[in-house]
Structure formats: C-alpha cells, structure tokens
C-alpha cells in the first residue's frame, strides 16, 4: 500500500513533466486493491482492473508495474500481459470489464478450471448498463466472479447522491440473486475477509458476490482533473483522517511490525523500482506507427492511408 502510494506520487510528477500520459492516482484505494490481491491466488484467480489499481497488484507479478509503465508512456505492449500474469489490461471504457469478467469466470467453470475472477469498478460504473447486464448473467450462471465496487463517493465530479437513489450499492445484489456485502474499504482486514469469503463461496459453486467497499477518493480523478473545484475541503479532510494506509500502519505499529524506518525503506525501494520501470519502459523500441498495430489483422484502406501519412510526417 505504501509502495503504491509512493509510486503514484512519482507517476503524478512524471505526468506533470510530460513524460507519461493521463493517469488515475490510486490514493485512497490502496487497502481495497492490495488486500483483495492478497486474498486471491495469483496462480489460479484472475483480476480485471479498471484503471486505478495496477500499482497495488504487485502480488500478481512484478510484470504488472512494467506493463503499467509501458501503458502510461503510450506503448501498445502495455496492454499485452504475459500469459503467466493473470491480470487483464487496463480498461478505460466504463464498466466494459464487468461482462468480460463474467464471461471469463463462466469459461473457467466450463473448462473445469479451479479459480475465480475479480473485477474492479467504481460507483459511477455501477450505473452503467454493462454492470447490470453482467451482474444479472453472473447470477443466472452462478459464475465464480467477485464484483468489487470501490465506492469512492465520486464519479469524476458527480457525487454519489446524484449517482443513485439507492441507500447502498450493495443492495443491488438482491435483484441479481447474489449476496451483497458492504464493507469499510479503508480497513484492509475487512477487505481481505470479505474477498476471502466470496472466493470460497465461488469455489464451492455458490456463484457471484457483489462487494461494495466504501472508501473516499483522496486525490484527483485523473491528472486532467481539478478536484478542488468540487470536493468540499472539510469532507476531504475528514476522509484523510481515515486514510487506509495510516489505519493499517497504526495497527501494525501496535503489534511491533512496522515503524518509520521500515516505511522509509519501503518508500525508497518503491521509488527505485518505479524509476527503473520507467527507464526500462522508455528504452523499449516504439515504432512511430505502432498505434495502428493492434486494431485489425490487416489495415483497412483508410488506416493504411493514415499509417502512410504518419510515416511521411504529413499532418
């Protein structure tokens, strides 16, 4: 969690220096993502992220950071994970990863593969048709999937009360015939327990679970967003007092498992790793026309013209 936040801060600076593209900081989601990853089995289970999670998914392999860096510098290979890494590419289109996750989970049962899929999305995505269709199908098929909604109170600048009239997002599970669980997403232990239980149920043939992890987005939606225009300062201040990292740190300090020195060491190590990943990413060859490479097996006539024009340096 500390590693993720440290690296997110460095990535923010890299974006402000024009060295990486638009990205979504993880601040406030660290416990939800890291504890989920720790409750899953990287050799059998799948994770389908949205776009805020990669820095806390290192349990699924060091390749995740490498891929994320490639993605952030605009390299198409950033979306091509090695087969051993059970993490899907980032998904920018809202909620489209949810039907993918249900299909993947269903496919695993058809192929008798032991494992579950976990899909991350947010409060905004829970209003999308894709969520409702996928949740319905998952319930009918009893697909081994965990629908993990990190409710961070903001869909860019839309507050939760304008997003839904429902009391909780977890309530939506009833309509799809699956358990709905609402947890404190700033409590890493609560996240771990909820995901662990949902995973066991899925493996035992009990089907999907909707988990609503309640958090607060502590940073901007993305590097292109200015939250000071709409997030009430006092709300943010209150949320900071509930920072998932500080809560876990307090607990671990009490157990004698964590101190400032350890934290400094973790931060320094995280900074080194993110710097090295960035250096490796920018050292990867990137053809000027790589943007066309993964759309069709053969360029359409219009794309072929565009590719040629780009290589000619024409506008």
């Amino acid at each position, binding site marked *: 969690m500390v590693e993720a936040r440290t690296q997110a801060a*460095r990535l923010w*600076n890299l*974006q*402000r*220096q*024009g*060295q*990486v*593209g*638009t990205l979504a900081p993880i601040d406030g989601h660290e416990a939800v993502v890291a504890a989920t990853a720790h409750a899953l089995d990287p050799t059998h289970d799948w994770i389908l992220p949205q776009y805020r999670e990669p820095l806390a998914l290192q349990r699924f392999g060091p390749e995740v950071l490498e891929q994320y860096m490639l993605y*952030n*510098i*605009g390299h198409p290979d950033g979306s091509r994970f090695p087969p051993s890494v059970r993490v899907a590419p980032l998904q920018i289109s809202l909620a489209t990863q949810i039907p993918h996750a249900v299909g993947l989970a269903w496919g695993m049962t058809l192929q008798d593969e032991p494992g579950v899929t976990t899909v991350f999305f947010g409060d905004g995505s829970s209003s999308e048709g894709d969520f409702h269709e996928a949740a319905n199908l998952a319930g009918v098929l009893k697909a081994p999937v965990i629908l993990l909604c990190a409710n961070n109170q903001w869909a860019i600048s839309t507050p939760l009360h304008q997003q839904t009239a429902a009391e909780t997002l977890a309530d939506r599970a009833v309509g799809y015939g699956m358990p709905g669980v609402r947890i404190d997403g700033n409590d890493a232990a609560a996240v771990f327990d909820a995901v662990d239980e949902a995973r066991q149920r899925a493996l035992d043939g009990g089907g999907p679970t909707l988990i609503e992890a309640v958090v607060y987005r502590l940073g901007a939606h993305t*590097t*292109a*967003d*200015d939250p*000071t*225009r*709409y*997030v*009430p*300062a*006092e709300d943010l201040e209150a949320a900071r007092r509930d920072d998932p990292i500080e809560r876990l740190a307090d607990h671990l300090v009490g157990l004698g498992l964590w101190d*400032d*020195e350890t*934290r*400094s060491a973790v*931060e*320094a*190590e995280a*900074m*080194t790793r993110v*710097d*090295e990943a960035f*250096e*490796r990413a*920018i*050292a*990867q*060859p*990137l053809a*000027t026309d790589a943007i066309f490479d993964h759309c069709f097996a053969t360029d359409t006539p219009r794309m072929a013209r565009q590719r040629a024009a*780009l290589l000619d*340096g*024409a*506008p």
Partner: protein
Amino acid sequence: MAHVFRLPDIGEGLDEAEIVEWFVAIGDVVVRDQALVEVLTDKASSELPSPVAGTVLSLGAAEGAHLRVGEVLIEIDDGSETANAGVRRPPPAAGSVGDPVSGSTPRPSGTQRSATTARPKAAPATRRLALQSGIDLNTVTGTGPAGRITADDVRNAETPVPASGPKPSTRLASRPVDAGSQPLSSTLGQMPSGRHPLRGLRGVVARNMVQAWTEIPHIHTMDELDASLLVDFRIRVRSMDRPGAAQVTPLAIAAVAAARALRRFPVVNGHVEGHPGDAIVIPEEINLGIAAATGRGLVVPVVHNAGTLDLFTMAERIASLVAAARAGDLTTADLAGATFTITNYGSLGGRFATPIIPPGQGAILGLGAIAERPVAVEGEVLARPTLPVVLGADHRLIDGDLAETFRRAVVDDLIEPLHLLIEA
C-alpha cells in the same frame, strides 16, 4: 548539459498555459520533482515539478505570459555529459507527430540515477518540512537511525545558503499569522512605468469591484465601542491551555459575534440575485469570508458552516486559512461560497472605512484598529481602548433599521465577549 523541459500537455488536449508564478530563478539549484512553476490552464492551476536535478539556466517565459504546449518552459543544467534528454520519447498525449527527433533517442536503461543514492535519507514529511523551511537536506546531518534526517534535525538546521555557490531555492514557508498583522511586502505600490495588462488576481479583483460598485447600492453604518473588556477577554482566553486559544484574535471574536448575529437576522446573510434584482436569496449556511492581504493582492478565504462554530474552532480555522492565503496554498473550494465578509482593515491602522460588498453577498463587516482613545464615561472623559466597526449593507435588501440593529447586535457582543462563550 542543458536539460530542456518543454511545456507538457498536462490535461487532455490543452494548447497553452499561463505562467502564474515561478518558484525558482536562474542560478537556483533544484532537486528532481521540486516544484518549479505554477501554471494556469483552462482546466486548472497546476504545479510542474522538475524532471531532473541541476542548476536553472533559463526560464522560458515571464510570469503572466502564455506558453504554448511544446515551447521551452525552462532549461536546467543536469550535469550530464551528453546532450539532452529534453526530448526523450514524446509523451503520448503531446502527440509530436512528425517530429524527427522524437522516439529516436531513448535514454539507456541502467543509469545510476536512483532515489536511494541521489537523495539523503528522510521521511516524506521531513522532506516537506525541509522544503517549506528552505533547508537543503544535503546540508543537514542526520541523527536518526542509519543517518536518517529527522524533523528535529531540520528544525535545528541553520537556514542554508552556502558561503559560495548558488543559493538553493525553495518555496516560501507558510507562517501562522494574525490576519492582517503581517507587514506587507516591500513590493506594495511598486510597478515599473508603462502599460500593464490587467490579468491574474488583479484582473479578478477589478471585475468583482466594478460589479459590486455599479450594481449594489451601498449604505454604511459606523460605531466605535469601548473595547476594554474585549482586550482583557482576549488576553485571558489566549492564556488558556486548549487548542485554538493562541489563535484567538479580535477578528476571530468578531467572526463569532457576526455568525451569532447572522443566525438572528438571516436576511443579512442573504443577497439580491440579478441586476437590478430578480430575487432575494437566503442561504441555509453561514459562510464567512475573511479578507486577507497577501503579497499578491487581496484574497478572501472562506470559513464554511461558520454558524455554530465555537470561538476556538473559529480562531483555528481563520488562522490556517490566512496562513494558506499568505503561502499561496488556498484551493478553489477555500475561496468559494462566502455569504458574508469581514474585513480587518484596521490591521493597517485605519479607523473608519467604507468597505465594498462582494458580489453575491448582502453585507460586509469592517473592523478598525483598536487604540486608546477618549471615551466619555459618566460625565468624565477617560482614555480607553476602542474598536471602530463599520457595517456595509445592500440597500436593496437591508434598510437602515435592520443595518443598525444588526450592527448593534455585533457591537453588544464585542463590548461583552463573555456572551460568546455562554451561548455560542
């Protein structure tokens, strides 16, 4: 060699940005990720951090100027032997299509640069403290475990400035201050001869003032109260051992008194909408604007939901907002939503003034300087500390009787501030 840092597209599809403020000057030594400049785009104001450590060679534009994306923002000598870096791989969003250099000179991996070797050991909070205090961590000897620099090491460190060589540059520290009691910067009233476009904060102030002056028919009512009990009250409260006590000022006391009076007279917390006027709007909340002079001009941070704050909380909130205003750290939210403003013009010594009501509000309270003046007490003239107060009101909304009654309510609480503790 010079590392050329070009203005990046930090939003999505931006064309240009305005240089609001440079935090560094030519010759300054900067560290990687140190804030260099604040820029304003049509989306937001952002700080741009340095991509490299080194010495500033040149600045691409003056404050107030506009730069297009891709133009040179700053050149920094990063001590490297090979020419530049400035154009590594193009950032995806910048889209340097057709640029023959881009993409062809990636930096080799495995270079020595790493966070652990390049930077002295210190926790992030300590780094922040050092930055705010103008202390270069490279000049501090760490007394923590494994030579780590602690916050105390930073506090004990002398202000830097090596005997020779360039001066390390950092942002100004924010200092807790009484609103208005800080001496203003020596740039007050200074401007070279010539024609200067009205922009930035000055431009915003100009537009607001014209709107206020032309649209709001002002009336002002003035009074001068015996501040003996107020002065005594403040001294005794400040000696209390509790959070916020040290921040209690006449301004904070007046803010609580004003909030109390606004609860009793919600119309004074309201305003007239439209020009010349379509509706009277009475807000649910009381949000107090606190006018503060800063080196960059007048800003009015807002204490939100001030209606029921106790004196100590009010004092803390005002102190932190004013400190943030002086440091230039206010957010947009800090500046939005005022329903009533208090201006402490007396911090500069004035007795009476006729403050202008900000657009979107119905009244403003002004405080003059507390000073010993002749007061008539039971037929005798005595020297007593007095506090001049002024209420400015929008006559479309507030008639003389309400203005006088409201002012009287505030004045009564300032004459006997114990009211504010008994019934917040």
